Structure formats: structure tokens, C-alpha cells
């Protein structure tokens, strides 16, 4: 999104033939930048500035009160001997690696169902999208917690089905699954994008395949999936990055502790605890930069693999 906004106005780039048109294009470029100003200011002051500051702080010992003290790489080396840090990576990785594919699968399935023509599909599309609108909110996290505590809906349900009693909130083995269910339930955003992608698949491809005797499974793997791959790539990238940033729901469900037994101590959550509860801003900044680098590297790898499985229509390759 930011890339489009950063691109210079195309007119200005063109070679000007006459001085008057050159002046005009300069004026246009000026106007372009004038309109960009609010965004540029926001970017420089609220994003780039703080990022630069945090990069500096990552090499310091800073407790918010006294001025930062330069400590070199100490914060980074400390990461490796911090058992909580390892734990934070473990739960975050579990959440990303399991949660993201399950969420994408769920959204793709629902998108395919909703792609069929049937009465009231508009209603169902809105209904399935709804959780995405409210799902990230604090109140839903509270409701989610209420559902999974001792004696909550889930506990009573599993007792009816003959499973042992007990809520999920207090069980360190079931808190991450609980949060994965919460994110999967919010499949609306990727679903809408899948739906748009499905609409783009030319029907004549299916017709041709039907003539050749392809069944629904074959059509899915040979036509739908390849045609959908750019959308799938987009969703995968976005949801992966998004999953790394899980914070709100874990914060609410664990009462701001990362518990029980550090089972919800997600990366950004631990970063927050170090920064704002332990006042170790330098350490927290170092953590933030490692996360930026890791997420950046993962995105890069995803982009690299693109050539192998993503098909853009109209591509001459």
C-alpha cells in the first residue's frame, strides 16, 4: 500500500519538450507532493522517526526515566540466553504455522461455497464477513474468554459429549488452540478476497474442462487453484504478517500476564511486557527489530517461491 503512495507522479518523469510544459509538469509534481504532504508528514513523524529512534534504542539501556546508555550489542546477545524469549518464539511460531493455513483453508472453503448461485447469498456473504469486523475487538476477546472458562459454553458442551470437564483458559496446552480458533473464526477478510478471485476465473475454462471430462476435484486442482494462486499468495503473505503481530486477544485472555504458564506469551506481547512493565525499552526495541528482520526475511522467501507456484494471467512466461 505504501509503495503506490511513494511512487512519483508519472507525468513528471516524462521528458518535456517545451519549457512551458516542463514548468507545468513541475507545478503538477508540486501539487502532487502538496497533496501527499499529510501522508508524508505522518510517515516521517509517526513511522520513520519512531523506527529510527527504536533502532538507536535497541543498542542502549533505556528505562524511560534516565537518558539512554549505549550498551552496544548487549540487548541482542541477551536475547539468546533469555528463556522467555525462546518461549515467545515457540508460541508465536505455533500460532503462525498452524493458525494461518487453517484460516486460509477455512476462508477458501467458505468463499467457494458462497461463490455458488443460491437464494440469499448476499445475506450469507455479509453474515460470514461479520466476525472479521468485530473479531479483533476487545469485547470479542472477552466473550471468547467467557466461552472457554470453567463452566463456560465450551466446557459444558464437551461434558455433554462425554469429554472431561474443565475450561481451556486455565490449561496451557489449550490456550493457543483457543486463540487459533478465534483467528480462524475471523476468516472474513481473506474470504472476500478469495471470492473476488473466484469471480475472475473465466467460466470457459471450466466449460472446456467439463467437455474433456474433468470432475469437480480435478477442476479445483487444475483450474481453480492455479487461477487463484495470485490471490492465495496475497492472502498468505498478509495473514502471515498479521499472525506474527497477535497481541490484543492474548492480552485480554491472559489478563495481561502472558499466562497461564507463559503459554500466551506471544512475541509482541513479551515485547510489550519488557518495554512497559519491566521498563527495558532498549531490550524491547531490540526485540522489535529482530521481529522486523524475521518477518521481512519470511516475506522475501515467500516472494522468492512465487515463481514456482503463483501464476499471473497474461504473463508471457
Amino acid at each position, binding site marked *: 500500500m505504501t509503495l503506490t503512495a511513494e511512487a512519483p507522479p508519472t507525468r513528471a518523469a516524462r521528458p518535456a519538450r517545451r519549457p512551458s510544459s516542463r514548468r507545468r509538469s513541475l507545478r503538477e509534481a508540486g501539487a502532487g507532493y502538496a497533496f501527499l504532504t499529510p501522508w508524508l508528514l505522518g510517515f516521517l513523524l509517526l513511522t520513520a522517526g519512531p523506527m529510527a529512534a527504536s533502532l538507536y534504542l535497541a543498542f542502549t539501556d533505556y528505562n*524511560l*526515566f534516565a537518558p539512554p546508555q549505549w550498551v552496544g550489542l548487549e540487548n541482542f546477545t541477551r536475547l539468546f540466553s533469555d*528463556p522467555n524469549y525462546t518461549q515467545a518464539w515457540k508460541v508465536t511460531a505455533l500460532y503462525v504455522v498452524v493458525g494461518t493455513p487453517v484460516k486460509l483453508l477455512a476462508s477458501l472453503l467458505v468463499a467457494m461455497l458462497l461463490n455458488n448461485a443460491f437464494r440469499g447469498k448476499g445475506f450469507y456473504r455479509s453474515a460470514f464477513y461479520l466476525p472479521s469486523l468485530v473479531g479483533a475487538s476487545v469485547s470479542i476477546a472477552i466473550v471468547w474468554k467467557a466461552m472457554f472458562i*470453567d463452566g463456560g459454553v465450551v466446557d459444558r458442551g464437551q461434558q455433554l459429549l462425554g469429554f472431561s470437564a474443565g*475450561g481451556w483458559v*486455565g490449561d496451557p496446552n489449550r490456550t493457543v488452540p483457543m486463540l487459533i480458533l478465534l483467528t480462524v473464526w475471523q476468516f472474513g477478510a481473506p474470504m472476500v478476497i478469495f471470492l473476488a478471485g473466484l469471480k475472475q476465473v473465466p467460466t470457459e475454462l471450466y466449460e472446456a474442462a467439463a467437455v474433456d471430462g474433468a470432475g469437480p476435484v480435478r477442476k479445483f486442482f487444475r483450474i481453480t487453484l492455479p487461477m487463484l494462486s495470485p490471490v492465495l499468495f496475497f492472502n498468505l503473505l498478509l495473514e502471515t504478517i498479521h499472525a506474527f503481530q497477535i497481541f490484543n486477544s492474548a492480552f485480554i485472555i491472559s489478563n495481561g500476564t502472558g*499466562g*497461564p*504458564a507463559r503459554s500466551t506469551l506471544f512475541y509482541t506481547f513479551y515485547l510489550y511486557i519488557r518495554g512497559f*512493565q519491566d521498563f527495558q525499552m532498549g531490550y524491547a526495541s531490540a526485540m522489535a527489530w529482530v521481529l522486523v528482520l524475521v518477518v521481512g526475511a519470511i516475506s522475501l522467501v515467500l516472494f522468492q517461491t512465487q515463481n514456482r507456484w503463483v501464476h499471473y494471467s497474461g504473463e508471457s512466461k
Partner: protein
Amino acid sequence: MTLNFTFWGNDDRASRYQQAIDLFNEEYTDISITSSFAAFADYWPARTTEAAGRALPDVMQFDLSYLREFSENGQLLDLAPYVENETIDLSGYDETLLEAGVLDGKTIGIPTSTNTLAMFENPNVTQAAGATFPDDADYSWEDLNGFIEDVSASGTSTADGYQLYGSGDYTGTFWFFIQWLLQNGVTPFNEDGTLGFDEADVVEFLGLTADLREADQLYPVERATSLLPKGGFTVNEVASEMSWDNFLTQYTTDSGTDNLEMHQLPSIEPGEKALFYKPSMLLSAGANTEHPVEAALFINFLLTDPEVGTIFGTSKGVPADEEQRAAVDVTEGSVDAKVIAYEEEVAEQVTEATPIPVKGFGTIEAKWRTLAEELAYGNLDPEGFATEWFAEAEMAIS
């Protein structure tokens, strides 16, 4: 002009503060107060961020555990001049109590009240389990464990099918460790800001409940986590819990049980409780305030106005100011009467000076809580607990 005022607490405290502010406005019509509040844990990140931006509220409720950090960089206003010119009238205060808010010669906080530790018992749970709480005056930690075992092993359950327990794991609270150290004759924090105990002390303290932990006779951590922010004691599934004596108000409201009893703490030597007063609910002003005089007036009003004493009762602890203390409604059998009776009963047992928390106290207290949870889930043993806690403490204190 407007003063910003922040405090931690719940709705009940907020409505009491609102009444106090209304009273203040009757007297000082030209000072309006904008107040806001949060839970204790959320309160500090907000204040620290404000401190970094030199934008602290004009007046704040403050806790001893964070005072040192904020004072070190001159974030808090020195109230001494206002005490000297009697804008803040501390004539009804015990001198020694005021020392808690004086750091490096500056009066940066004045306590509203004092707390001391107490043992709370829910007699309904005890009776249902067919147990009896040990004799008040000189029961030991072992006696307490025996009581816990009696209740937990009775196999009694609530109407909802939850088993009754004698207690949660009391070694999970840092302040109880401090109390136990004092009973052992150990000074927890040295003058130079270092710790007066070592890993072996921590391991020994955690060992107090080792057998109960082993036998699953402590309130299950899974259930406790599930109940947060309430606890086993406030849902009437646990027979006893130690805490600050001012908790009676909250316990009574949350549990709906109005016959909760207060007992003395267990001790190592019979009857030697080694109690201390914790000056609490300090009021401080941000050094950045543009209205120091008005801030001082408001602080004075909250600390010394008798009607404010009536409004809060013992919900913030027993008021430090003489007139406020006298104004607390002590109807026989009321919550406030019980708390005041307890403090009178143990007055002679208060033999220790207040352990002045080291810098980073808030952090090391929170780490203790996290690690105790790990211990309860069986992910750590007491030795691992001690090692990890000391590693954290070293960073927080330095």
C-alpha cells in the same frame, strides 16, 4: 483551572473518589478535577509513558513499589514546601509514617493510609469441610498447612461441583515472602538498594508448601487462572487467604459473604508475627504540574478532610490522619469495624520497620507472580524458580 487526577482501583473506589471530589468542589469552586482510573497492572505502563514525555498528571495515587524509579529522575514534585507552609496539614500524622514518602530529602509522596498483612477466613467453607481454623495467637506455618490439608482432603464440593480447598499456594506472593523473611530475622532490602536474601531463602520459602503442592491440596492453578480477576477465595471455594487488611471491603463485595473473619498471620516462633505497616495509597504530584499550589490543596483535602475519611472507610487501608481515622464509621460488625479491630489487636505485633522497596520492586514482584504460576503448573522446580527470579531481579534493580 483544571487538575488531572489518576488512581488505580475498581468502580467502588471510583465512586468514592467522585463523592470526595464533589465535596472538594463545594469548598474550592474554581478548581475542577478530571479523574481517571485503571487496574493496578495497567496503571503503571500508562504513568511511565507519561513520565517519559514529562506529562504526568497533576495529582496521582502512588504505590511504594514504584516510588524510587519515578523519584530518581525528578519526576515527582517535592511537597515539602507545602507541608511547611501547612497547605498540606500533617499535624494528625505519625512522623515515622511520613518517612516512607521521603527519598533523597524530598517529600515526593504522602501515604493516605496504612496496611498490614492479615489472614482472611471464610467460615462457611471451613464448616462445610468440617475443619477448624487453628488457634489465633500462636499457630505456625505448619499448623496452617495442616488446616489447608484438612479442608482440601475433605472432598467437599460446592453446589456447582467445584471442590473446596484450604488455600491457594501462598508462596506465590512476594510480600508473604518478605513477611516470612522478617519472621526469620532477615532484613529483605539493604540500605544500599541491594537484596538481603539469597536463592537458598527463596527455595526454603517455596518449600513450605511443597508437600501440599505434591498432593494437589492447593487450589488448582487452572481454575484460579480461569477465574481471574476474581480468585478462589472470592468465589467461596477456598477457606483462607492472606492479604492486606484493607482487602476485607473488596473480598466482602466480590464474594457476597459478609461473615468473613480476620485472623493473625502464622509465624515461625509462636506469637512472633514480625508485622510491619505498609504505608499505602500515597498521593504525589507530577513535577511538571503547572498548578502546584492547587495540587497541594487537593492532596491536603484527600488526606485530611474528615468527611473524606467517612467516604472511604478502610477501603484504602486504615487512614493515617487522626481525624480521618476517627471519622470512619465503626458500626459493630461492619467491615470497617473489623479492619480497625484487627489493626488494634495486632498493634503490639508490629515490630518491624517498613521494608522500603528497592528500585524495580514492581517488576520483581510481578516476576515472582509469573514464576509462581510456572511452579504451580509444574514447569519449574523451586531451584529453577530461584535462579530465574534472581536473574530478573539483578536486571531490574541495577
